[in-house]
């Protein structure tokens, strides 16, 4: 099998961060390739340092390489400096393990974590030497697949990706391997035949097996071309996270990446029901990993990797049953005389309450520099609309607890451009930040609050999927209001995301199949790495929409009606559309909804549809948990009080 390393090696001294391209990570596998083995190239279509830590990709990498039928290598979008050296030399996209050309793999599979990487997907396909449009590919070309959260609306990439995986990939990758292996044994004759076989695999969506019908600008439906192709593709859901203790050999990069630490997924799914949050909606039901398995994965992982930090990942880690015990065990000083230093724990998703601060105090004994909370909206009314049911008292008591325990800087995440938002709601962000800073000053002179504000982009399979996004100008106006409101505030900083990028994200997020041409045009005019501010260019997107006669108003800014066919209606995330619609109506009435883990079912469809129930070790809600728990958040229940006492004792 070939390797382009001899051609690549002399180019690497000429590029930034050449370690992006050498592989050699601890945990990497250089697999054997053979005709009877189905080879996968797993591609994260962004820079190495962003893509390497992706847990989904690493899980599939291990599962595939553990199988005698499959071999998997990885690739990441080459940075523009390397691409500029590869293209004139006719060198292709390559794997980082054996530097094998991407075109020699049977399957090139993309992880879609964000919409703005779509142009990079096209660029990687092209750099692999594969025609970017599925229709132009021949049997000798690799099959192009994609999965990840953005695959729940596959239509914008439907012309470029041969098959999509909807939902959890752990089981379905092996089923895809089997279909492709059979096709290879049969001589790889007919590309349509293998795609049609793939379309019969549960959770696999093959866009070319479906026809799209329009009535003028309106979408009428996406229907199967053949009777054996399902009219609706249901997402895959693994029932038991404990059966998949992956990654077992997490990749340890040689060079700096984001989230450079051991990551252990403690549960999947979330039922907090935040209405803006696509991840929380499409990953239901909640499936917890047993606490003992979490402990084992932490212990083994730290020993194997040499990391001194572990992140317990999930959409709301403080909700994990037994979180206190797991954290306490992990940060406890080791009895092992040869242990080096202390292990620190990070919780990437903090809930806003005193209990969470108690846990944070326990894990950040040393570096109490910054803490992040996400109230999401500035007023209680607005937080009821988005169903992030944090009262001002919750927030202030959490902030007070944090400052009193030694933190000096706090970051608050907010969204603006939310449904029914008034200027009063927007300015509520400044009000909250101002009050938090004042609380901080009671404890420390240098108290600092950073309000980080992002423009809201409605996502498929959320109650807000019908909402017309705020315009770039409107978001700009709101940022202006906030900027003026905090200008003279002591200890309050304001940060915001570029509203222009939210427009491009909005085009891709709820686009239909016609948006594919727009993505292709943006890419053909050089629009790659659109996630990166130095490359993002809204004019490319505006021009491409105009070129193809598509209206930004229609795609992005328009409110949808319940009668409208949505581009992802032929995909199922397990959620009943009428549940989402009712939740949207409740949002407009600013009615909050409690967490269904510990309250009666709202029949969203996720559990009943798959015959799975929330797998939660604890029958009672976690102490101090917010919505649905009915507990006093300011006090935080019995457990955190003990924690606080213990800590106070340890400090004095």
């Amino acid at each position, binding site marked *: 099998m070939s390797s382009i390393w001899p051609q690549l090696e002399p180019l690497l001294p000429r590029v930034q961060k050449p*370690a992006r391209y*050498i592989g050699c990570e601890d945990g990497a596998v250089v697999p054997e390739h053979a005709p009877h083995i189905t080879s996968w190239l797993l591609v994260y279509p962004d820079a190495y340092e962003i893509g390497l830590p992706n847990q989904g990709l690493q899980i599939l990498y291990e599962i595939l390489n553990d199988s005698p039928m499959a071999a998997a290598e990885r690739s990441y979008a080459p940075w523009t400096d390397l691409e500029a050296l590869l293209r004139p030399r006719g060198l292709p996209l390559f794997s980082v393990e054996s530097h094998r050309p991407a075109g020699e793999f049977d399957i090139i599979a993309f992880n879609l974590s964000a919409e703005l990487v779509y142009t990079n997907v096209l660029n990687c396909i092209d750099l692999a030497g594969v025609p970017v449009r599925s229709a132009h590919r021949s049997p000798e070309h690799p099959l192009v697949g994609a999965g990840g959260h953005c695959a729940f609306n596959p239509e914008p990439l439907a012309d470029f990706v041969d098959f999509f995986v909807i939902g959890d990939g752990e089981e379905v990758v092996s089923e895809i391997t089997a279909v492709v292996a059979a096709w290879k044994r049969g001589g790889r004759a007919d590309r349509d035949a293998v795609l049609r076989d793939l379309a019969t695999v549960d959770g696999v969506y093959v866009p070319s097996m479906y026809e799209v019908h329009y009535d003028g600008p309106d979408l009428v439906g996406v229907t199967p071309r053949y009777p054996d192709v399902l009219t609706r593709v249901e997402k895959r859901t693994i029932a038991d996270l404990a059966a998949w203790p992956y990654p077992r050999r997490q990749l340890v990069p*040689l060079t*700096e990446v984001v989230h450079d630490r051991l990551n252990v997924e403690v549960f999947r799914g979330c039922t907090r029901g935040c209405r803006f949050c696509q991840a929380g909606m499409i990953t239901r039901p909640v499936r917890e990993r047993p606490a003992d398995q979490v402990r084992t994965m932490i212990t083994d992982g730290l020993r194997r*990797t040499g990391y001194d930090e572990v992140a317990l990942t999930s959409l709301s880690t403080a909700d994990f049953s037994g979180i206190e015990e797991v954290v306490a065990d992990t940060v406890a000083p080791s009895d*092992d005389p040869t242990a*080096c230093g202390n292990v620190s724990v990070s919780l990437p998703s903090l809930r806003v309450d005193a209990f969470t601060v108690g846990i944070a105090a326990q894990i950040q004994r040393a*570096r109490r520099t910054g803490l992040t909370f996400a109230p999401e909206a500035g007023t209680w009314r607005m937080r009821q609309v988005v169903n992030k049911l944090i009262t001002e008292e919750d927030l202030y008591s959490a902030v007070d607890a944090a400052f009193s325990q030694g933190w000096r800087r706090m970051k608050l995440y907010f969204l603006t451009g939310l449904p029914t938002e008034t200027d009063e709601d927007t300015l509520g962000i400044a009000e909250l930040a101002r009050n938090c800073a004042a609380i901080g000053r009671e404890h420390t002179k240098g108290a600092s609050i950073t309000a980080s504000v992002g423009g809201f982009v409605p996502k498929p399979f959320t109650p807000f999927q019908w909402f017309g996004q705020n315009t770039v100008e409107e978001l700009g106006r709101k940022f202006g209001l906030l900027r003026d409101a905090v200008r003279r505030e002591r200890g309050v900083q304001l940060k915001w995301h570029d509203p222009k990028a939210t427009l491009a994200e909005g085009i891709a997020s709820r686009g239909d199949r016609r948006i594919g041409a727009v993505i292709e045009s943006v890419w053909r005019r050089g629009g790659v790495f659109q996630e990166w501010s130095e490359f993002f260019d809204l004019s490319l997107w505006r021009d491409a929409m105009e070129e193809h006669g598509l209206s930004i108003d229609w795609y992005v800014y328009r409110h949808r009606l319940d009668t409208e066919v949505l581009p992802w209606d032929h995909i199922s995330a397990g959620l009943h559309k009428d549940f989402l619609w009712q939740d949207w109506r409740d949002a407009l009435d600013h009615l909050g909804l409690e967490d269904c883990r510990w309250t009666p079912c709202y029949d969203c469809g996720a559990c009943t549809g798959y015959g799975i129930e929330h797998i939660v070790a604890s029958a009672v809600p976690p102490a101090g948990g917010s919505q649905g728990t009915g507990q006093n958040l300011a006090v935080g229940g019995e457990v955190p009080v003990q924690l606080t006492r213990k800590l106070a004792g340890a400090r004095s």
Partner: protein
Amino acid sequence: MRIRIRFSKLGKIRFTSHRDVARIWERALRKASLPVAYTEGFSPRPKLSFGLALSTGHESLGEYLDVDLRGDRGVDVEELPTRLDPALPLGIDVQAAVPIAPGTPSLQQAVVSCTWRIEVTGQSPAEIGDAVRRAIAADRLVVTRARKGNEVTDDLRPLILSLALTGATNNAVTEDGTELVAELGTQPRGLRPSELLLALGGGLEEARVCRIHQWLLLDGARQEPIPWDGELCGATSAPYAITRTS
């Protein structure tokens, strides 16, 4: 207890940076369960001290690291290479480890020069040979370079301690160019191989570069921080005595 470790950096891993190598070592020492001492204070860091930074892309047969160990429990220094190697990535190999006395000057202070093997492209071996002879004969080699926005003029000649084409001039061509061996001073600042080539003139470009020795002065005599006579060593070794890992 303080120990000094000598290691190589060869092959693909040469594309990692100095900072990357520091992080690799921190993890490796934890994986090997060495009782490394940590700094006090708000954010404890392991007490490691590296020698002169090696540029990203350059290989080395002689890199050094000083490690402070906790307490007085002894560590078998002899067995450290075999204990550490499984914790290190391919391309970084521990060659030797020795205990060092308290008060030993740091590597940054003590090292006075490095010997480099530099593969050079851009001109024929004969032309490069002429450039080398001119450089050796010159009293001054003045180079102007941009540094933090200012033009700085330096005489590099005092930092060129020795310079030679290895082997017979016409045989010194490797697949990566003509091979030079140079000993370059590090005080008050280290002369880089690329600056040497700039001083030689004629648009020479560096290809593969390997630091083969670092030198300090002990009672006036030139010596390596840890002498090592492994089979890969030696300034005059023939090209490709080293097994490349890539």
